[in-house]
């Protein structure tokens, strides 16, 4: 069936991205099996993302929330002025993106594989502007070929039980008494299948890029044909929607995993990638201090519009992010589950929901 389906036109693929298409599941199945459509979707998503970033600047601005207190991440290289197109979309989109940073590496696989070179066991924060994230993706394209796109098409299921039957981690559910009164008490249950993305390095391409950049970094022996396989986990999102764009989302996902196929191991590959010219130094400095061996997931925090603070939640290290006038989110990993609570609410409300989660 999906083999015989004619490729949809660009307009249909664009509608698919916004879930405004007529038959999402059929289309998703086709796209998964069709390289041309995946490429087209990737391009459309990039265009949409850059546009949304820019248009976000025009959003009516709400009053800023109070600054997050202790330990707020200071960017390593504090920008003198805000980046021009490094802002994330505002409104509900920002909340979705905050969660999306964990689940759906925002289409261009934010930072490609760079941020996910390990099996995550805890989270830590790395501040990154959208512009820098795009730049990393651009650099990765110079070094090889990426195949497979992280699946970002959620399918809607009938119940939490149905979702639980599909995943190996316990699906987190909020206590009824913690759900804000202005959103629905029953969520939409969305499921995202696990997916893999493979970057196959090309030594000639890499050498050409390094030479063109005037870099003294040499291509490591064995890089040609080396594969970096990134495993994006399956995820379940409970979406509690209310009027006036009020929203609460509780997301549970498995752990990220990465592996290599070829002579280089993950740490060798990482050391090389962090020295490749074009990767923003603010990012490499931070990543250099992340304890990858301990499985710390360097979670990209979009500094342009979001403040991130390290905190702990029920004994796990966590990241609390908040965005002026938009909402806040809390993300942490316990065992093999990555959990996120995000909403158009204060950090207090989100933290309360997070602390009271079942499962």
């Amino acid at each position, binding site marked *: 069936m999906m083999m015989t389906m004619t490729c949809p036109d660009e307009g249909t693929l664009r509608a698919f991205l916004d879930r405004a298409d007529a038959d999402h599941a059929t289309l998703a199945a086709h796209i998964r099996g069709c390289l041309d459509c995946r490429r087209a979707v990737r391009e459309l998503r990039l265009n949409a993302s*850059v546009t949304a970033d820019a248009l976000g600047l025009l959003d009516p601005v709400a009053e800023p929330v109070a600054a997050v207190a202790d330990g707020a991440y200071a960017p390593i290289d504090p920008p003198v*002025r805000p980046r021009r197109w490094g802002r994330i979309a505002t409104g509900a989109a920002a909340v979705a993106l905050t969660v999306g940073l964990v689940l759906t590496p925002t289409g261009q696989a934010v930072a490609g594989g760079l941020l996910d070179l390990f099996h995550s066991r805890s989270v830590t924060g790395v501040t990154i502007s959208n512009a820098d994230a795009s730049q990393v993706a651009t650099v990765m394209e110079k070094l090889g070929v990426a195949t497979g796109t992280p699946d970002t098409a959620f399918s809607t299921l009938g119940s939490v039980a149905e979702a639980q039957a599909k995943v190996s981690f316990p699906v987190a559910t909020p206590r009824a008494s913690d759900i804000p009164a202005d959103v629905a008490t029953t969520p939409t249950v969305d499921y995202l299948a696990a997916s893999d993305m493979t970057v196959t390095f090309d030594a000639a391409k890499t050498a050409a890029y390094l030479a063109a950049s005037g870099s003294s970094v040499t291509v490591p022996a064995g890089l040609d044909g080396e594969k970096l396989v990134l495993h994006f986990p399956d995820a379940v999102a409970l979406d509690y929607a209310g009027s006036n764009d009020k929203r609460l989302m509780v997301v549970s996902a498995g752990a990220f995993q990465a592996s290599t196929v070829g002579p280089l191991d993950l740490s060798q590959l990482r050391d090389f990638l962090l020295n490749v010219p074009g990767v923003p130094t603010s990012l490499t400095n931070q990543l250099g201090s992340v304890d990858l061996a301990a499985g710390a997931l360097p979670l990209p925090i979009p500094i342009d519009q979001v403040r991130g603070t390290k905190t702990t939640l029920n004994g796990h290290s966590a990241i609390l992010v908040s965005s002026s006038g938009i909402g806040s989110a809390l993300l942490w990993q316990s065992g093999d589950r990555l959990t996120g609570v995000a909403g158009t609410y204060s950090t207090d409300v989100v933290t309360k929901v997070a602390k009271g989660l079942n499962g």
Partner: protein
Amino acid sequence: MASADPVPHLRLESIMRSARASLVALVRRIVDPAEAEDVVQEAFVRLSDDPVLDRPDGEVTAWLRRTALNLAFNRARDVSRWRARAARAELPEPVDPAAEAVRSDEKAGVRAVLDQLPDKQRSCLLLRHAGYSFAEIAETIDIAPGSVGTTLARAERAFKNLYLESHADDARTDQENR
């Protein structure tokens, strides 16, 4: 979808009450808050004389969105022309805190790029970004519902290319000024 109210001015009032806030929020992306109120008011004034007022609610609100967007874009162009004249004449600009000045500058950059797009693409982008559904966009910019995806895809591609180009130009200028 309510049918036309037998008493037109009552219907106009009821539409004004229900549509005002969302229209203001929409056009605030294009003009300053005070001007946004003006623009929406002007759209309502035009509506009071327009035969569309006899049409069903959905059509009336689509007409209002279209009219308000056009008015706002026209006004934004007038404002930028005025600023350009003011700059040439070295008239003092209102003093902004530095951060706000940067933000205004960035907003102006985004609006300048929007201004280069065809009307329907520009409105399509703004409406989608403001959260309107594909069906509402189709009705507002008067295209078939099935064409919204295509219009949006073209608009986003054109916007991205123009926007990145404008920043590449800025970066070159910055470099030269160092």
